[in-house]
């Protein structure tokens, strides 16, 4: 089962090691009555120890489904139909998470243990009828031999670290008694209390006001440094990405169309879609009253994905002889950037 290792383009200077988590050609489809929806269709990226990978893309491009696929928590009628998710363990062997039995013990020890996840909707991501303490203690005890009291102590400690006042008392409260920002903090506490190696944060700040957003990002970055944790940060807010990410992956219709270090992506985007995304971002020095440029056309429904390069109907640099006919592969541009566009070679 030798699959060609993708070129390691983004290397960690200190170690030059293998990635901690490597997603290769992930495909997750939804089989609905109306047809098959290819929510994720060949996404590839690597995550390195202590670094943050940002995933950006418009709504519906498959960011959340990619994240859920890593942990295999896709709802019916979705199924992961192809690809690999390799997690390197402390030894040198790496495990393919997708080969594990779904909901088996092995994958469950990774969920919430080695890889934790923070969800998009802080308001509904907690059970409304269990106390917050109940839910966080459960998370701790699933992955450690602590008894109830020790777990309680640890939970209180984590609540304090994420900045929730009087945590002792809040442990016995219900989620509806928390504000949105507090819930998101609590969510972070619950995800981090097991000291995971990787944290997947799916739009952790989208629902929050700017001040709270900044505080949450701060907390995440502090904790990342303390634990040398990797973060996969999903968002459609390029401003946030610029602030937190080391490497950025741009997704379009279930595919990673460009990936590279954050500076390169922002200073010299290669893929026309990335360029369009960046130019639609409001900047402070933009002339007042200047119309914000936006990407022409609407995102196609994932069910009738355009043939060839799926961006071609909206692409300003569309080439009629190839773009609508063949699908481009990710190709290296420069030392550490990759984009899937025929502008950079027609292999």
């Amino acid at each position: 089962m030798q699959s060609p290792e993708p070129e390691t383009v983004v290397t960690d200077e200190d170690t030059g090691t293998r990635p901690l988590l490597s997603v290769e050609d992930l495909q997750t489809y939804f089989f609905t009555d109306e047809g098959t929806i290819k929510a994720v269709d060949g996404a590839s990226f690597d995550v390195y120890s202590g670094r943050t990978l940002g995933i950006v893309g418009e709504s519906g491009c498959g960011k959340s489904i990619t994240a859920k696929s890593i942990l295999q928590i896709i709802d019916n009628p979705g199924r992961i139909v192809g690809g690999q998710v390799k997690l390197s363990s402390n030894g040198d062997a790496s495990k393919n998470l997708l080969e594990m039995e779904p909901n088996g013990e092995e994958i469950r020890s990774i969920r919430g243990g080695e890889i934790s996840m923070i969800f998009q909707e802080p308001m509904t991501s907690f059970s409304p009828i269990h106390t917050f303490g109940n839910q966080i203690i459960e998370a701790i005890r699933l992955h450690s031999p602590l008894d109830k009291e020790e777990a309680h102590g640890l939970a209180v400690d984590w609540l304090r670290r994420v900045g929730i006042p009087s945590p002792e008392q809040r442990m016995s409260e219900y989620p509806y008694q928390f504000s949105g920002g507090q819930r998101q903090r609590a969510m972070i506490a619950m995800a981090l209390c097991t000291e995971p190696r990787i944290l997947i944060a799916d739009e952790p700040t989208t629902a929050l006001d700017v001040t709270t957003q900044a505080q949450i990002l701060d907390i995440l970055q502090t904790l990342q440094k303390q634990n040398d944790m990797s973060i996969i940060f999903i968002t459609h807010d390029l401003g946030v990405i610029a602030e937190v990410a080391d490497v950025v992956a741009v997704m379009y219709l279930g595919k990673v169309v460009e990936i590279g270090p954050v500076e390169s992506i922002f200073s010299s985007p290669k893929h026309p879609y990335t360029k369009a995304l960046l130019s639609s971002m409001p900047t402070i020095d933009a002339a007042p009253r200047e119309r914000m440029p936006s990407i022409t056309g609407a995102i196609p429904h994932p069910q009738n994905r355009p043939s060839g390069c799926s961006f071609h109907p909206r692409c300003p640099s569309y080439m009629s002889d190839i773009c609508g006919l063949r699908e481009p592969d990710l190709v290296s541009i420069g030392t550490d950037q990759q984009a899937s566009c025929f502008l950079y070679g027609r292999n």
Partner: protein
Amino acid sequence: MLGYLIRRLFYAVLAVWAVSIISFFIINLPPGDYVTSYIAQLAIQGNIIGAEEAESLREYYGLDQPSYVQYLKWMNQIRQGNLGFSFEFGLPVNDVIGERLVLTMILAAATIVFIWIVAIPIGILSAVRQYSIWDHTFTFFGFVGLAVPDFMLALIMMYFSFVLFDFSVGGLFSPEYVTASWSLGRGFDLAQHMIIPIIILGTAGTASLIRITRANLLDELRKPYVATARAKGLSEWRLILKYPVRMALNPAISMTAYILPFLVSGSIVVSVVLGLPTVGPILLKALVAQDMFLAGGIILLIGWMTVVGTFLSDLLLVWADPRVKFEGR
């Protein structure tokens, strides 16, 4: 929470009052007043009552006064625990109803327990294994269960137990226990006899509770908090039982309040068909004979019972769902 409880209690009291008004209305529906019928009834038995005595009776019931006075007099009597006199049975209504009311309550309560025990696991199974053979089978039986009227189910059960087992369903006690006083043996005998009535009465409720549990659980299973719990590494069954099932139980509890009136209605009809010694057959007899104090008394008491039962399941909901406490503040 206190606010919620007070509001519920207030509605219950309101319903109690509405039931009493309706019962009083029913008592007064037949033409002619009670005393005239009473005198006529006594005359058939050979007792002639003098005009004076009739007049004092009229006064006693306030028949010469406006109806709200009559209502108040009636309510006052009931407050003293006196439901009036049944001339069909020649006994005070209290004595006629007595044990039958208790049996009606036991039957309704047992049916609710039956519905819960059967419907909740099936509902969970149907939702978790959506579109499986089990799901389709139960869904179909659910529809049939809802469609067949209670009395018809009773007839069909009677027919099959007679044809197949040569066993005639009926009554709630074996002959040797009918008039015996309560004992362990009598209770056991009652339990045995109740099985078929419970199944008949519980079918429709079970069917709708299965549907409700299934639909709610399917809803809950799609909620983000389930994904959160999964992402924690919780095992699938533990997760389902701890979170979405707990959530799906809340509608099931409110549902109980909603089925209770139907159960009581159904028990009356089923009791008539199967000849169960509940208030059902007596009510029918009283209505046919226009023995209105008996009929009105029965309607009043089962109405009140239902209201109390509904109130109790409201209480259960407060205990089960912390959000109710919060919202009702």
